[in-house]
């Protein structure tokens, strides 16, 4: 019998190439020798990853292989599956999930553990010989029992194994069922396969299901996609311009709060999941950064990005989206706890993989807008997941949604831009296909302005400042109001500038009400002035005010006269009073309510008192606590003594400890697990002291060897890095 490492030693470079490209984890980092390669290839994480890459049919064949006793042949697999198994088996061999040994096909030692004990719902093989033909004559009750167990799980519970019902007892008698424990019976593998008509699976999913969907016109797809592309670019720009104006605050735990997300979503005129997607896009493309004060703001890269051509801008966004492990679809779902956009909880390991799979299915079905159920079926066939499959479906549906937002698809089918992007080809065609920008607006007498197409960047920015966007899409509708004109004035525009800009940009004459509105608002704007100051000095005697303004000794105060009777100053009131007093004036303090503050001052702290704690004393334990402690110590002592004694005997009998390298260890362990032999191992404890154990290895899982320790008679797990050596007994 050849081991997996023996097999690896025998294959050529081509086979390695195939193996490594299918399972890149085997060469990152590059293993030192074939033995360690074999160990890595047989480790459960690597096997699980390889199994994840199988499609449903390949997985079914693998399950069937696991249901056979080793060694097995292609013929035996075909017998319990289908003729098409040969091809699938070749693939399984090429990625090292099955290997041809000198006596037939074998599975890598840990594969069965990864697949599970009951592949395809089949129980263990029967130990006794069963006469399968006799099953036809089973009584009706027995047949009923068999029907329940046939498609798995193969275990059934009975009230009492000694006194089962007539059906079960007939089956037990004829060895068609095997008792597992007091209450459980199990259907042996051969019986189940026989009952399943000689096959392992009810249905064999040999070919990928056909993708159903709506056929779309290619021109319409591209038109829709280019509209999506221009929209997503606009969204990102609008979002970042908004943040440049009013940065959102990041939550302490990271990410955008629910309220801020809502504000952004009304601002952009899209729903919250789309808003989350846009914020994530900007984040992935490093167009935003979160500063030390937790404010979310556009980064310098945003300015660079803005200067790029639309196709480059789009490519930045789309390529970051393609590879990210972050899933914006998780944000704000009703059924789960709130996950924040830009927050730390959005990473999902399989996100990029499912995204790539989704896109490749779209690519294989050009001009088809997939119907979601059918799409999920295809995805499930291509990547059958055994745990958390709902997430995979969601990931796929989010990918479809996001691909549409991005314009990789149009009307749900892949667009030419998407195809070229995924192929990594030149995207300048986007620049030609985007609708031509317009350089004018139409102002109407109801105080709205309409840009009948995408506006030139400069104009749209100016306009966004002085009007509110009321409707978005191919065109943009702006509405002027008192508040929006005021905003423009706050940004440093003057009324005349606004008017001049609008007159220049508008194709239609400026309606008079709007002109009046601008004039009215700019007339009123800035009439009231507000500012910060630290202290003020006021005096009803204006000559005294003039005197202190001209007093050279007070220059340090940098006084500013804001009214005949009021002077402000950036020093705080106490300092100002001190300096005034030093210069010979007689100021008195005044509270904000205008009350004069005089009289003796006796200060009080504003914080709560915190007296120091007493340290150095330990509370005396109660009698119960003490007696419990003593009991625990005595029990521990007894068992330690017994174990030490047993180990001493073993050590004396065997002499020196075995020593093997880690790879040899794994190799030996894997071999002896299948041979069911006892091993002698050296095992390091927590303190590094190595002891000698005699064990019966059972299996390897999660970096530990599960084995029965002869000294204690218990099943225990031995961490593999701590095993210093293995030797057969």
């Amino acid at each position, binding site marked *: 019998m050849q081991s997996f490492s023996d097999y690896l030693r025998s294959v050529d470079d081509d086979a390695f190439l195939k193996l490594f490209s299918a399972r890149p984890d085997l060469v990152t980092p590059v293993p030192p020798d074939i033995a360690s390669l074999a160990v890595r290839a047989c480790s459960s994480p690597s096997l699980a990853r390889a199994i994840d890459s199988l499609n449903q049919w390949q997985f079914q064949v693998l399950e069937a292989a696991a249901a056979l006793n080793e060694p097995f042949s292609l013929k035996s697999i075909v017998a319990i599956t289908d003729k098409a198994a040969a091809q699938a088996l070749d693939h399984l061999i090429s990625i090292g999930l099955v290997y041809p040994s000198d006596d037939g096909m074998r599975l890598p030692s840990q594969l069965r553990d990864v697949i599970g004990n009951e592949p395809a719902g089949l129980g263990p093989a029967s130990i006794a010989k069963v006469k399968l033909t006799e099953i036809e004559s089973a009584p009706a009750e027995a047949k009923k029992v068999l029907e329940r167990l046939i498609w798995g799980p193969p275990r059934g519970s009975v009230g009492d194994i000694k006194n089962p019902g007539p059906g079960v007892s007939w089956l037990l008698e004829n060895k068609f069922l095997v008792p597992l424990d007091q209450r459980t019976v199990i259907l042996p593998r051969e019986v189940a396969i026989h009952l399943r008509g000689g096959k392992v699976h009810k249905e064999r999913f040999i070919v990928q299901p056909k993708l159903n969907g709506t056929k779309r016109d290619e021109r319409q797809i591209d038109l829709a996609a280019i509209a999506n592309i221009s929209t997503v670019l606009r969204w990102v720009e609008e979002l970042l311009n908004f943040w440049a104006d009013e940065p959102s605050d990041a939550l302490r735990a990271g990410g955008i709060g629910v309220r801020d997300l809502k504000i952004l979503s009304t601002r952009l005129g899209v729903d919250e999941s789309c808003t989350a997607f846009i914020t994530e896009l900007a984040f992935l493309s490093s167009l935003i950064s979160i500063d030390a004060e937790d404010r979310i703001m556009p980064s310098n890269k945003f300015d660079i990005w803005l200067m790029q051509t639309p196709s480059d801008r789009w490519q930045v966004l789309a390529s970051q989206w393609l590879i990210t492990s972050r899933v914006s679809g998780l944000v704000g779902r009703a059924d789960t706890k709130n996950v924040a956009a830009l927050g730390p909880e959005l990473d999902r390991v399989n996100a990029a993989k499912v995204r790539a799979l989704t896109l490749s299915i779209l690519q294989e079905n050009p001009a088809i807008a997939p119907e979601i159920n059918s799409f999920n079926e295809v995805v499930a066939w291509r990547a059958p997941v055994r745990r958390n499959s709902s997430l995979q479906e969601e990931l796929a549906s989010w990918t479809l949604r996001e691909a549409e937002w991005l314009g990789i698809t149009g009307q749900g089918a892949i667009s030419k831009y998407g195809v070229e992007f995924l192929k990594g080809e030149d995207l300048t065609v986007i620049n030609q296909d985007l*609708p031509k920008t317009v350089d004018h607006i139409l102002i109407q007498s109801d105080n709205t302005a309409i840009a009948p197409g995408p506006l030139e960047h400069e104009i749209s920015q100016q306009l966004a400042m002085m009007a509110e966007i009321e409707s978005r*899409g191919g065109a943009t509708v702006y509405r002027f109001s008192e508040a929006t004109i005021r905003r423009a004035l706050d940004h440093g525009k003057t009324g005349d500038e606004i008017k001049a800009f609008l007159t220049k940009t508008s194709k239609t004459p400026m309606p008079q009400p709007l002109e009046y509105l601008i004039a009215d608002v700019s007339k009123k704007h800035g009439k009231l002035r507000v500012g910060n100051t630290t202290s003020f000095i006021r005096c009803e005697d204006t000559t005294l005010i003039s005197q202190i303004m001209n007093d050279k000794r007070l220059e340090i105060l940098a006084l500013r006269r804001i009214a005949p009777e009021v002077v402000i100053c950036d020093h705080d009131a106490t300092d100002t009073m001190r300096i005034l007093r030093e210069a010979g004036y007689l100021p008195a303090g005044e509270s904000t309510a205008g009350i004069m503050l005089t009289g003796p001052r006796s200060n009080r702290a504003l914080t709560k008192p915190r007296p120091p704690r007493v340290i150095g004393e330990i509370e005396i334990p109660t009698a119960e606590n003490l007696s419990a402690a003593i009991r625990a110590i005595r029990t521990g002592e007894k068992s330690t003594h017994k174990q030490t004694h047993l180990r001493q005997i073993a050590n004396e009998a065997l002499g020196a400890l075995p020593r093997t390298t880690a790879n040899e260890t794994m190799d030996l362990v894997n071999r002896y697990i299948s041979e069911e032999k006892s091993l002698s191992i050296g095992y390091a404890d927590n303190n590094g002291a190595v002891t000698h154990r005699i064990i019966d290895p059972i299996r390897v899982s999660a970096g530990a060897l599960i084995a029965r320790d002869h000294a204690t008679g218990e099943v225990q797990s031995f961490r593999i890095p701590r095993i210093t050596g293995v030797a057969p007994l």
Partner: protein
Amino acid sequence: MTDGPLIVQSDKTLLLDIDHPLSTECRRAIAPFAELERSPEHIHTYRLTPLGLWNARAAGHDAEQVIDTLIKYSRYAVPHSILIDVAETMSRYGRLRLEADPVHGLILVTTDSAVLEEVIRAKKIQPLLGARIDKETIAVLPSQRGQIKQSLLRLGWPAEDFAGYVDGQAHDIALKEDGWKIRPYQELAAEGFWHGGSGVVVLPCGAGKTIVGAAAMAHAKATTLILVTNTVAARQWREELLKRTSLNEDEIGEYSGAKKEIRPVTIATYQVMTKKKNGVYAHLDLFDSYDWGLIIYDEVHLLPAPIFRFTADIQSRRRLGLTATLVREDGMEGEVFSLIGPKRFDVPWKEIESQGYIAPAECIEVRVNLTETERLSYATAEVENRYRFCATTRTKRDVVEALVKKHQGEQILVIGQYIDQLDELSEVLGVPVIKGETPVKEREILFNKFRSGELTTLVVSKVANFSIDLPDATIAIQVSGAFGSRQEEAQRLGRILRPKSDGRTATFYSVVSRDTIDQDFAQNRQRFLAEQGYSYKIIDADDVFQGKI
């Protein structure tokens, strides 16, 4: 990329470029399913609403047609989400049907039992239902026909109503087109209504809504109940019907505070219908006193709440709502649509104007300055009195005087909200005033004098906001109003929109105090008209005094 006149926005608005050669064709194509929202000078805004799409379904259009139309006229690619939404929304229509069953009376039938299960579990629907007949059918209490339609609409599963309308007692009515002809849009409106069964027709003031009512009656050929705002309006309806239809005096009754006649065609006022005696509505029996084949609601935007409730109970009768301005500041537009029926016809004001059926009008906002002392008292006035204070400022009086003088010889209406202000103006101008307390008889005498030209200037309160026909009035001067009411502004403009015999332009002045809430309210009031394409010109009071305009 086509170069169409339509831009479909992602928020389901449709922008129609009316300077585009295809705009008229496109307008006609989208009118069945999109609702006109604004129609200013250059770009008209339509909106896709579930209601609009369902109405289109009811009128026999399917989703594919709607989508084709959008794609055909669209300048840019139509957002995919909108196409999906249109298809989805329209597919919801017709899954539920209301039918008349010979055994069970009114029944709700479905083609999709899941939908039925969903709706019968709704709290609002449950009390309206009778016994379950089978998996796809359930009985409905006949009296709740209106209510259930309304509630189903809110749930997003509109029921197609196949239960039909009662024909009512037949009564022969025909249009009598001697010396006049029904206008094309009036005919379209009446037909649109008749095919839809029930609904609202929106036409500008002065565009002849009465004729649409008469044409609808001619279609129905049945006894008709007409509900109007006040007695003067009732008399006008009566005269108009006598003139335009084959009805004679004995066939038309007036049911008002003064008279209680019930005839095959009865005209009742909202006021009398909502009058309570000992805590109950005494006159609601009128609805049952005849087997009415048609009920017409004039100025439906003013429909009072009790009538709303009662209207829900008479869903088996045909209902026609007429209005110029379906904007209610109380946001009850939706109720009007679900109880009377959806909008069946709507046309931009400027389009009717361009066809010459309403007079072109110029809107001018005259801004007056408060004097220093007025400004100070305005600033210190209580918030609730501020509007009254600035709306009735002394300076406005001088402006009105100057304007009346300037338009000497033309027919002038001075309209205001506050009685003291109106009394004062009537005194200064030396003309009579019509207000709430003026008896109907006197009102009619004054209006008749005004129509005949004996009187050239009239001061009126809000009683003349609606339904008053003053064909030759060319100038309206508004001095104050009901705060920011958009429909009031439009209705007041409507008083001077009847086409003039000499084709003259009408002028609407709104006198506003500068830098006060009067100005803010004015801006809101003007919105509806601005959205209809009426552009206000703003001038200063001094320009009026110096005769610069």
